[in-house]
């Protein structure tokens, strides 16, 4: 089985978000980058499927050179090779075009990625890629098993989940508990250094551009209510906050 896993390199979930250059650029100073947590689930499941069924796992990142430590970590976790499309990933359509372009040539059985990136949170790249390739996509996928050429999938829906079956090839947006996050071992880290990482240039151009960033207005002070007067909260929510 040939699996492509698309990963993002994103600020650590505890990173302090700020902007520079007159609020036109993300401030990377002091920020640690990690594999998108949802992408990490996708990669972990891909490595498990490879262990069960054989085949290859290729990691794909649409991003700049500073994503390479994240890509190497994915190789250390068990991917066989990697591709980086050298560009800034800000427009969903543009990112999807790069992925679809590569996938159209390589004919993967499965294209896995996170349900959304945690920087832009759009959750649309899997759907875009699938439509560009003319195959189905499903998200958010919580469970994935392969039997022959059929995928058995559990997808989260509002207030529950559903079981689905579809033929490969497929594009899936993944989330927990599809697999446990994997931690690279020493051997993985050593072999990752020599695994192939191909860098290619993007095609086409984005349909949007981001001109300016802004931080939310700071929250006002928290009004404390004494535990013995807890009931007062309900009155305040009615009369002051007007949310009840």
């Amino acid at each position, binding site marked *: 089985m040939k699996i492509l896993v698309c990963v993002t390199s994103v600020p650590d*979930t505890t990173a302090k*978000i700020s*902007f520079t250059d007159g609020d036109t650029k993300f401030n990377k100073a002091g920020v640690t980058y990690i594999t998108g947590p*949802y992408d990490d689930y996708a990669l972990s499941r891909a490595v498990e499927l490879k262990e069960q069924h054989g085949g290859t796992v290729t990691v794909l990142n649409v991003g700049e050179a500073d994503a390479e430590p994240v890509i190497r970590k994915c190789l250390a976790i068990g991917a066989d090779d990697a591709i980086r499309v050298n560009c800034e990933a800000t*427009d*969903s*359509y543009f990112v999807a075009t790069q992925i679809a372009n590569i996938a159209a040539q390589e004919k993967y059985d499965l294209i896995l990625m996170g349900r959304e990136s*945690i920087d832009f*949170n*759009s*959750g*649309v*790249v*899997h*759907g*875009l890629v699938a*439509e*560009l390739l003319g195959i189905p*996509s499903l*998200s*958010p996928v*919580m469970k994935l098993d392969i039997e022959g050429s059929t995928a058995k999938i559990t997808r*989260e*829906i*509002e*207030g*529950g*989940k*559903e*079981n*689905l*079956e579809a033929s490969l090839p497929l594009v899936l947006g993944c989330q927990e508990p599809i697999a446990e996050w994997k931690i690279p071992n020493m051997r993985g880290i050593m072999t990752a250094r020599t695994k192939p990482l191909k860098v290619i240039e993007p095609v086409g151009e*984005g*349909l*949007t*551009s*981001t*001109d*300016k*960033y*802004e931080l*939310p207005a700071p*929250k*006002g002070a*928290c*009004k*404390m*209510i*004494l*535990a013995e007067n*807890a*009931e007062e*909260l*309900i*009155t*305040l929510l*009615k009369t002051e*906050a007007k*949310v*009840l």
Partner: protein
Amino acid sequence: MSVIIFTELDNGAIKKSSLEAVFYGAELAKLQGTTATVLAIGESSEAELAKAGNFGATKVLHANDARLAVSNIQAYASVLTEAVNADGADTVILAKSSLGDAVAARVAAKLKASIVSNVTALPNLSNGFVVTRSIYTGKAFASVLMKSDKKIIAIKKNAVSPVETDALAKVEVFSPALSDADFGVKLVATHKASSTISLPEADLVVSAGRGLKGPENWGIVEDLANALGAATACSKPVSDLDWRPHHEHVGQTGIKVSPNLYIAAGISGAIQHLAGVNSSKVIVVINKDPEAPFFKAADYGIVGDVFDILPRLTKAVLAAK
């Protein structure tokens, strides 16, 4: 160049989040000097769908083929694309949801449309078409210029505050050609909690964390939620431990909510939890530790024991009814 709004139905009625999208679409249509058309897919009635007019739509296209009764991403995307073409629409508006996102993404690819998600306000049309979107799970906002002729906007809850009128929309049956190729994914079974309030749609949410100590204690959380008519939610460790179902888990790696009121009981307020709830209008925190980081993000706080405070709040809510 009309505006089309993709809506979702729940038991034949247009979902509340979709009605917000209708209002958004109608306001945008006004700014552009055009009209707003609603697409509704699945079983419903003319009387029910005409109510989209209350939120500013002039027309509803109703696609009610039996094959569309169960939501199907590819088929819905084909129907929406046909509706966009039939109505000569330039812009598609929808409420962000897992179905909406999936359908919108496919339509964007079919139409080569720019697509922006988590939009928090009406666009600024003074210098191109610029929308504001929430990024970094609510930790920042970005202004995005949409450059293509066709545009798709997925709005976040509370992007607009709808004002209702008595106007009714004209309902037309819409019968697009369906292709077998769109029905390749087979639905085997659905497992859905029966009567609970949908968490992403809820205006009021009562959420609890590891401070509740075990699943057997959730009765006090549910009692307060029931008294308020609120949905229940939880922190990630609570769903990881299987105390609560996964679809209640909110935060950076869970559901993102923006209700009018979010009550957090026995949740420490880790940055990953806050990321999923920080766009709530009012946040109440109940925690026995006065140093819990959540208080810094709260509007109202009570330092106290959840096992004492929650039942008393439930009583106070019921007494005030």
